[in-house]
């Protein structure tokens, strides 16, 4: 089985590689369209800023590659946000796989809400194959200032003042806002299920 991790100007790729390694899977970090298309599974990770990331993808034609993939794809963190339609972060049009708007957390009262959200939060309403072995209300590790709104594609919900999409799925496209590669056993189980799709 070939697992491609899309290489672009966004961090945390090494952590994803190590997490796969702990599951006995060797991932390949690549920005080569042919290699990505030929992979059995594709992971689209990311920590960073939306507009520079989109620009990078477009310059290399990776935006069209990603949206046309037929095999299971897993977006992580910024990856999820880029798979949505549009992000408030620097008013960036994104890939549009999910018809969802990405918004910035707003504190209802000054200083009440710390932004970014950093830490472990529980996820509920789980209904996707990738959560097959993840119990309802499991805790996952989140680091983000922007969130995907709730939508028909929402397959897990988290709450940080608002309820938002902790995970989205449409056909072969899966995406999680949290970092499964850093979410202890619960995250490991999710990755395991994704790799078995």
């Amino acid at each position, binding site marked *: 089985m070939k697992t491609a991790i899309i290489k672009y100007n966004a*961090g*945390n790729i*090494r*952590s994803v590689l*190590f*997490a796969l*390694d*702990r599951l006995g899977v060797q991932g390949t970090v690549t920005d080569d369209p042919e290699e990505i298309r030929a992979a059995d599974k594709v992971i689209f990770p990311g*920590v*960073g*800023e939306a507009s520079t990331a989109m620009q990078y993808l477009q310059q290399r034609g990776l935006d069209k590659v990603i949206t046309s993939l037929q095999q299971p794809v897993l977006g992580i963190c910024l990856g999820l946000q880029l798979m949505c339609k549009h992000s408030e972060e620097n008013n960036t049009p994104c890939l549009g796989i999910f018809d969802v708007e990405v918004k910035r957390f707003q*504190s209802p009262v000054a*200083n009440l809400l*710390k*932004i*970014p*959200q*950093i*830490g*472990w*939060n*529980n996820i509920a309403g789980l209904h996707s194959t990738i959560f097959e072995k993840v119990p309802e209300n499991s*805790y996952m*590790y*989140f*680091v*983000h*200032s922007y969130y995907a709104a709730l939508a028909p594609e929402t397959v897990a919900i988290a*709450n*940080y003042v608002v309820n938002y999409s902790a995970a989205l799925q449409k056909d072969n496209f899966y995406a999680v806002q949290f*970092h499964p*590669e*850093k*979410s*202890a*056993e619960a*995250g*490991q189980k999710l990755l395991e299920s994704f790799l078995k799709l």
Partner: protein
Amino acid sequence: MLTKRIIPCLDIKDGRTVKGVNFENIRDAGDPIELGALYAQQGADELVFLDITATNERRKTLAELVTGIARHVNIPFTVGGGISSVEDVYVLLQSGADKISVNTTAFKRPELVDELSREFGSQCIVLAIDTRFEEGDWYVYLNGGRVKTTTKAYDWAKEAVDRGAGEILLTSMNNDGTKQGFALDITGQLSQNLNVPVIASGGAGTMDHFTEVFENAQADAALAASIFHYKEIEIPDLKKYLYSKGINIRF
């Protein structure tokens, strides 16, 4: 709901833990990777590795160690100690660290915080402050608590947040090592007035000290070293206890 975090801190010298002790269920308590993995398995929410090596060889050793930790530990971890440039941080993040912490060098050259947050994002920049209460206020100390400054801890924390620090790791030197509890006043002042998470450090001795710092000082996370290393408090017991006290905790 977002939970409060429990963070064991491991001091590292020449690639080995300094206070590593007495864990019968691991082979080598001096091995930061093995100890880190054990804490992760016990339910620690994050780890902090503080490198106190002073030699020139430190950077290479540390980068190798960070890669080892990232390979074996499945929770987020912060690396600190002697970081003074964008290049230092680049190497550590590339090696697999999730966050880095800066202390003295950032105080001496605050632009470092701007540079780091611009380059890597605020979410991975932790500002560590060592502070001591004297003459009616909390002052910043540098160089591992050896050098006094005339700057108040709150003022420096606020400036650093404005410059892009994503979290504050606040150690009270008055409380550190006393086991009499965390410094609730200064922790609370920072936590309630700054828009970033505050990690309380120094003084943990009982499980109730954690309850206090979360409930009365609104700390977002609490860090401790010796009570975990010497197994005076074990993480699963602590989390169970906090949960029973109604603290929102991953358990």
